[in-house]
């Protein structure tokens, strides 16, 4: 109790609240503009957080991610273009409801279910994370190595496109993470004699480059000034009659909460996957599956809850094991490390007040979602008709200064530019970028845990399976890779024997 009171004292400081408010408005605006993702919003914010206290920095990121994911529903409902990938699962239903004159209802549903989902995910984080952390205190290099590998494996398997391209993305991320001094012996690698590269490529330039620059390049190729000229949908009544409309879908919302948190907690999977899975489950068990995709509230409510609850869920592996749940929490881990905080089981015992304050900031951000989200819906017409020719150059300038701010060197801008070109090339060739970012963050952890494990085991790889949890994780990863392969081969064999 004492810890909670101290944490509340830390959280309810003017500095933290103002930062959260500013970050929330920024997140809502970015999320509502199609093409600008939550990851991009967070990566643009990271350079600013460098100069702030850990709590202010993390609470801003929490606020931005919750707001951006939720406000991605606004363009999805109004103009049939999801603001962020997390809103793509139910875009058809949302838009059809708008065409039926129910834009206020569908946006109100998104807002309220997102807040419920966000709070549910946070409560799971608050209750499960410390218990898991206690359990994780017994982990050694072997377990952490397998956990890192589990995260990378999931990132590959849930990414869009062919598996081999997901593998390539992870290897590119690991390769980029090799640049600089190696974590065990401290010898320089792949620096080409440059002293700028000794410290590595830096998380922020790579992040900003890979998430923001491809979008800027796409805009430069096809500079549509506005996605639409005006918004005619009626968003007058956002909360009116909402309780009555949502009550029949309470089980679906609960399903979305649980599925979203569970998928978020799975290393590698993010809010977009959570929304798709929850929407699919909702349709599967619905009494009226034929109404899905034609303006039905059931899927919107479930998936809307899922995408925001996954944010809280994704923080469970990040906080407990230091292994990111998705690209957003990968950024958070980078920020925590920059602030001198090492995510992992000891974070709960070494800094309980700060950790509790961070967890409480999730609840506060989700409560702030209701009034601020309402304001965003009301000003959606202005946001959606904003001239992109004005917006994109400003984003470019902020990205350059943001990258520079981390090392005070133009080398960071060079890295940002190259990472951006690489990210653009990858996306153009159906190679997902999120696994690369995850691998870039996890790279040093994978390597140091693997090498430490090999040193402890005196080069005997079988020792990675010698401890019960390590063995379970190792077998699980083998199954993740081998079972789908086996099923595929079996199906091919069956098909061949039939023909």
């Amino acid at each position, binding site marked *: 109790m004492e810890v909670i009171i101290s944490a509340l004292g830390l959280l309810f400081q003017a500095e933290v609240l103002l930062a959260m408010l500013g970050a929330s408005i920024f997140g809502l605006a970015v999320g509502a503009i199609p093409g600008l993702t939550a990851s991009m919003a967070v990566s643009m914010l990271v350079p*600013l957080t*460098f*100069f702030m206290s850990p709590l202010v920095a993390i609470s801003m990121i929490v606020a931005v991610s919750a707001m951006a994911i939720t406000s991605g529903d606004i363009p999805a409902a109004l103009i049939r273009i999801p603001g962020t990938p997390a809103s793509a699962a139910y875009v058809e239903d949302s838009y059809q409801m708008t065409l039926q004159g129910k834009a206020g209802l569908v946006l109100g549903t998104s807002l309220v279910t997102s807040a419920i989902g966000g709070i549910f995910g946070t409560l799971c984080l608050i209750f499960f994370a410390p218990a898991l952390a206690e359990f994780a205190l017994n982990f050694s290099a072997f377990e952490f190595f397998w956990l890192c590998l589990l995260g990378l494996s999931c990132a590959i398997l849930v990414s869009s496109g*062919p598996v*081999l*391209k997901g*593998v*390539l993305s992870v*290897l590119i991320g*690991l*390769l980029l993470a*090799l640049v600089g001094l*190696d974590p*065990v*012996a401290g*010898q320089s*690698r*792949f620096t080409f004699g440059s002293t700028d590269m000794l410290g590595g490529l830096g998380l922020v330039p790579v992040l900003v480059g890979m998430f923001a620059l491809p979008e*800027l*390049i796409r*805009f*430069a*190729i*096809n*500079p549509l000034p506005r996605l639409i000229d005006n918004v005619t949908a009626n968003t007058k009544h956002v909360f009116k009659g909402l309780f009555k409309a949502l009550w029949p879908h309470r089980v679906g919302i609960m399903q979305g909460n649980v599925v979203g948190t569970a998928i978020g907690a799975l290393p590698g999977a993010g809010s977009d996957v959570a929304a798709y899975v929850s929407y699919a489950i909702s349709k599967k068990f619905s009494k009226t599956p034929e109404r899905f995709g034609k303006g039905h509230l059931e899927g919107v409510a479930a998936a809307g809850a899922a995408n925001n609850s996954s944010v809280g869920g994704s923080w469970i592996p990040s906080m407990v094991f230091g292994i990111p749940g998705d690209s957003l929490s990968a950024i958070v881990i980078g920020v925590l490390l920059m602030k001198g905080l090492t995510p992992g089981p000891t974070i709960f015992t070494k800094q309980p007040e700060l950790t509790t304050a961070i967890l409480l900031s999730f609840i506060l951000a989700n409560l702030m979602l209701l009034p601020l989200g309402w304001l965003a819906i009301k000003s959606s017409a202005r946001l959606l008709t904003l*001239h*992109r*020719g*004005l917006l*994109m*150059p*400003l984003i*470019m*300038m*902020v990205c*350059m*200064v943001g990258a*520079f*701010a981390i090392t*005070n060197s*133009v080398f960071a*801008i*060079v890295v*940002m*530019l190259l990472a951006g*070109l690489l990210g653009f*090339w990858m996306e*153009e*060739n159906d*190679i997902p970028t999120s696994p690369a970012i995850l691998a870039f963050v996890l790279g040093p952890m994978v*390597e140091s845990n*693997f*090498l430490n494990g*090999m*040193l402890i085991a*005196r*080069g005997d790889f079988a020792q990675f399976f010698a401890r019960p949890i390590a063995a379970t994780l190792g077998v699980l990863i083998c199954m993740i890779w081998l079972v789908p392969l086996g099923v595929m081969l079996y199906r091919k064999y069956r098909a061949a024997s039939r023909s």
Partner: protein
Amino acid sequence: MRFNNTLIGLMTALLGLYVFVTGYRMPGLAHLQFGPGFFPCLIGIGLMGTGVGLVIERWLSGAPKGIWFEIDSRLRSSQAQTGVLLMLGGIVFYIMVSEEAGFLLTGAVVLWGNLWWFWRRPLAAIFVSLLTVVLIQISFGSLMKVPLPMGWLEPIQGVFSWK
């Protein structure tokens, strides 16, 4: 620019070979069984395997041969080329000139160039670009103590609020 999977595979395998050889040549340490080159070697092997896998996958898929890469058709228009050149060229220009000329001047020029092209309001773009760089200088430079280069404006540094 879209490459076909055979080309991506070959490039990946070559990159893998380079990473493997570089890792293999890294000097080991006497007291460590696994030196700094061990992990790069593993990544190199992974890249080579993935590259070969991509080539085989495309070969097995029976996709039409001959087209190694194609440039986005939208990039063939001079408008798109100018846009990309201005955006990426602006960043390169900033990298090369900002330390000498300073953030305020270089940033304003780069921003104005892009606003002029994409926003199509050259006069308003002057105002927006000047206002933006000054605001960035105040927020990043003065409040967050990021040493944005002053360059040619160094003699008047401190006259305004961005000291």
